[in-house]
């Protein structure tokens, strides 16, 4: 018998990609891991494949799935290719000229009639270094107040660290972990969120660094650790305070460092004095002897490092936790030395100064906190909104955010894809992807890398750099301040920001892995901050108690913003979100592969599933004070009983066609650090659609 072709077999299942020798080099701009990547293009200039760059010393040719998946979104069906204007509820194609004229005219009108504060930017995805710089110049000239990634991600972490050390950035590179004796990972699932760089942690473990993970979920990172301490959700502050108290009471701190380089030690000791390990054990659920052993380990295994994640910095008592853990690192003297310090993907190079002449600067006539923004949008104080990002999915109480945006007079979305926020805009503008824009990228290793543009745009996309310069021209602003290319932008940045003056594009391109910063001149690269123990606070010392006027105190998550007033009877469970390896922010959702790897689900303990009466895959309605969404049950013992967790994404316009998880989080801010809350909110859950009991 010969070969037999079934009707279903008419499509070929596979054909390996053809390899070309000429690959283009870039740097992945997703998680700030800074992985070097190599791009293979087909004849039409579309991305055929993404590989790891073997010459990059930080990822050594290895990558996670995200850069591969993101390539699909570049030429995918959701991409916005040309400017559009909403006419009678539907979008019509217009030219950039028409769009810019319209935006400029509206912008000037609102400034004159309603003041600079009537225009707001939600600009978490502004683009690369060129776009960020142009956007910064534009904001200085117009008094535009912007809400970037800070309110939903980094505010608590950066604000508290800035008060403690005078700089919100991580103090040490991730790669320093191999010089460390102990690494404390708190609320951070780096194995999934920084998979491409996680080998630094596993390698360190193999060469003797003790890896301790504190988390509510038994994460992939926890699994790779020497010790996993599962903690009750929202109780990290109590653990941090008990560690401080134990270290202080037992004289386990670094007395020289404390006396010479810190202020406020006695006050801090007073703040935590009531937090015995016994009391912390009751609150956290972590046995007293485990807490004490951890304190002893931290005191004896030096140098030591700390790596916090969104699991601890986006909760309703985040600021106090960051304060306690980073204060602990300080009094142990774990700052400024090789193998010591705080790892973070917050790595600010510092802004430009003195570029704009004083008489050209326009100050915003009013400012609002991120939580007050909702009300001011609803009540008409805000007229116009510039969006680069997807606040209708990424900001809390997504339904309220969407409604507030819908009610505004004039909304512009500069975006990669037609997402939940873009569909509400009056003008939609096509944005370049980071593979279509050259620029500098900072990484968790505290290095700056330069990437050239590797993919040509296929429509009328423009970078934020071009958009804001062109808009400034139309508005009659002094547009000569603006650079006209990513390269010119970098030269401008070197001239007006001494932290990067010594870092030319050529140096970044020639140095595998990039150049450490700050670096005012060649030979003065800073691998880790504060090696000289001079801190950037006004006193030059670590300010252990200047974080807040109030003392460092533990607030139960049930009594903290977002949960106050909710009844434990009505909402018996806690809900959080956690990131997964296939996704980064909402942008990776638009890839086929990411969809194949991850579907929306809600994790729950088998006993919780039993209480609700659902089995694996059944639909569960999760409800909080702000609303409810339906998700498939994923039953796992990785989470404690009574604790639910889902991915922080989705969107009605996303391929998942699913209400955003942030719909469930009320607009509430951490009182100490200011971050909006996206974890540990009280909820209830029940089987959907007649299933269960």
């Amino acid at each position: 018998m010969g070969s037999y072709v079934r009707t279903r077999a008419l499509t070929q299942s596979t054909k390996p990609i053809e390899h070309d020798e000429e690959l283009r080099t870039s740097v992945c701009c997703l998680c700030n891991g800074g992985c070097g990547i190599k791009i293979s293009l087909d004849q039409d200039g579309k991305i055929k494949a993404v590989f790891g760059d073997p010459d990059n010393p930080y990822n050594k040719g290895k990558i996670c799935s995200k850069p591969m998946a993101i390539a699909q979104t570049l030429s995918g069906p959701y991409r916005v290719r040309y400017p559009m204007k909403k006419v009678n509820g539907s979008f019509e194609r217009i030219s950039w000229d028409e769009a810019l004229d319209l935006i400029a005219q509206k912008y000037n009108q609102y400034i004159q009639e309603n003041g600079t504060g009537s225009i707001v930017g939600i600009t978490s995805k502004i683009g690369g270094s060129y776009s960020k710089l142009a956007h910064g110049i534009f904001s200085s000239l117009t008094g535009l107040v912007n809400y970037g990634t800070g309110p939903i991600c980094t505010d608590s972490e950066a604000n508290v660290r800035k008060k403690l050390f005078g700089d919100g950035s991580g103090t040490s590179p991730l790669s320093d972990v191999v010089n460390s004796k102990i690494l404390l990972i708190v609320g951070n699932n780096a194995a999934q969120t920084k998979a491409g760089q996680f080998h630094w942690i596993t390698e360190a473990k193999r060469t003797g660094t003790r890896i301790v993970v504190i988390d509510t979920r038994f994460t992939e990172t926890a699994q790779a650790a020497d010790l996993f301490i599962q903690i009750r959700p929202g109780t990290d502050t109590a653990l941090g305070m008990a560690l401080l108290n134990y270290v202080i009471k037992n004289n386990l701190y670094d007395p020289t460092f404390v006396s010479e380089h810190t202020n406020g030690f006695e006050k801090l000791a007073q703040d935590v004095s009531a937090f015995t390990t016994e009391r912390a054990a009751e609150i956290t659920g972590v046995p007293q002897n485990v807490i004490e052993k951890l304190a002893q380990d931290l005191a004896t295994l030096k140098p030591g490092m700390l790596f916090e994640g969104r699991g601890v910095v986006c909760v309703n008592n985040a600021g106090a936790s960051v304060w306690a853990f980073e204060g602990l690192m300080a009094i142990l003297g774990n700052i400024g030395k090789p193998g010591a310090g705080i790892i973070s993907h917050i790595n600010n190079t510092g802004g430009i100064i003195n570029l704009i002449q004083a008489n050209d600067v326009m100050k915003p006539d009013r400012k609002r906190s991120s939580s007050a923004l909702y009300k001011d949008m609803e009540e008409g104080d805000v007229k116009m909104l510039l969006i680069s990002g997807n606040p209708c999915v990424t900001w809390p109480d997504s339904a309220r955010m969407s409604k507030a945006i819908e009610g505004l007079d004039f909304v512009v979305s500069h975006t990669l894809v037609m997402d939940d926020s873009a569909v509400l805009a009056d003008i939609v503008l096509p944005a370049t992807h980071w593979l279509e824009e050259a620029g500098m990228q900072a990484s968790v290793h505290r290095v700056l890398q330069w990437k050239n543009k590797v993919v040509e745009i296929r429509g009328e996309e423009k970078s934020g750099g071009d958009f804001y310069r062109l808009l400034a021209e139309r508005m009659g602003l002094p547009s000569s301040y603006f650079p006209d290319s990513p390269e010119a932008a970098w030269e401008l940045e070197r001239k007006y920001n001494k932290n990067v003056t010594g870092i030319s594009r050529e140096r970044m391109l020639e140095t595998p892995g990039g150049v450490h910063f700050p670096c005012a001149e060649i030979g003065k690269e800073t691998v880790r901050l504060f090696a000289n123990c001079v801190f950037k606070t006004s006193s030059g010392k670590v300010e252990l108690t200047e974080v807040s006027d109030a003392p460092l105190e533990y607030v139960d998550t049930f009594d903290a913003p977002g949960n106050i007033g909710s009844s434990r009877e009505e909402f018996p469970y806690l809900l959080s979100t956690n990131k997964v390896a296939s996704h980064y922010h909402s942008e990776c959702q638009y890839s086929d592969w990411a969809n194949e790897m991850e579907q929306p689900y809600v994790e729950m303990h088998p006993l919780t599933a039993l209480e609700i009466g659902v089995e694996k895959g059944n639909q569960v309605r999760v409800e909080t004070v702000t609303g409810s969404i339906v998700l498939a049950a994923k039953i796992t013992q990785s989470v404690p009983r009574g604790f639910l967790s889902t991915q922080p994404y989705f969107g009605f316009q996303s391929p998942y066609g699913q209400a955003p998880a942030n719909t469930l989080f009320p607009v509430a801010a951490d009182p100490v650090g200011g971050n909006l809350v996206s974890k540990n909110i009280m909820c209830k859950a029940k089987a959907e659609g007649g299933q269960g009991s």
Partner: protein
Amino acid sequence: MSQHSMLVDESRCIECKSCTVACKQENNLQTGDWWLRVWRREQLKGHLVRYYNTQSCRHCEDPVCQVVCPVGAIQRGKDGLVTQNNAKCLGCHVCATACPHSGMKIMTNGKVGKCTLCRHRLERGKDPACVSVCPVNSRVYGEREELLREASERMEDLRAKGMSVHLEGVDKEQSVVMYLTVDAEN
């Protein structure tokens, strides 16, 4: 010529699924098709134990899929790699049922498909795609002797930490892809 193999070290896997996506990218697999999958297993034994079970063709020395295929579409080559001929394949899926390692996958076109160990890459002196991306060296490719040494070193380290592990794909049931597996009884 020295024999080459792949080592899959379950103890190192972090379930990032980069291997799965790299496989799809390299072999141009359609949406819904997979040659390599990563599954999560959980067990409560005093404390919670979790493993990541990666499944793809192991290229057995004595492949059962070859034996059961009614049309001889599956052959083991001189290089030790087991190949499946798509033109000959009937789509009867007997091989998929027979394979003890879930290495044979049913494709969306109704036929079966499986890992080629990226033979086209090996011919060009490159590692298989899944190996080339794996961020934690859970997957490594190289000379078999060297990999066996590497595996025994890794197992020694893991046993010293109290883990019970064993190596699959050696001795009686030889395969090109060897698995360093964490024992469930632990």
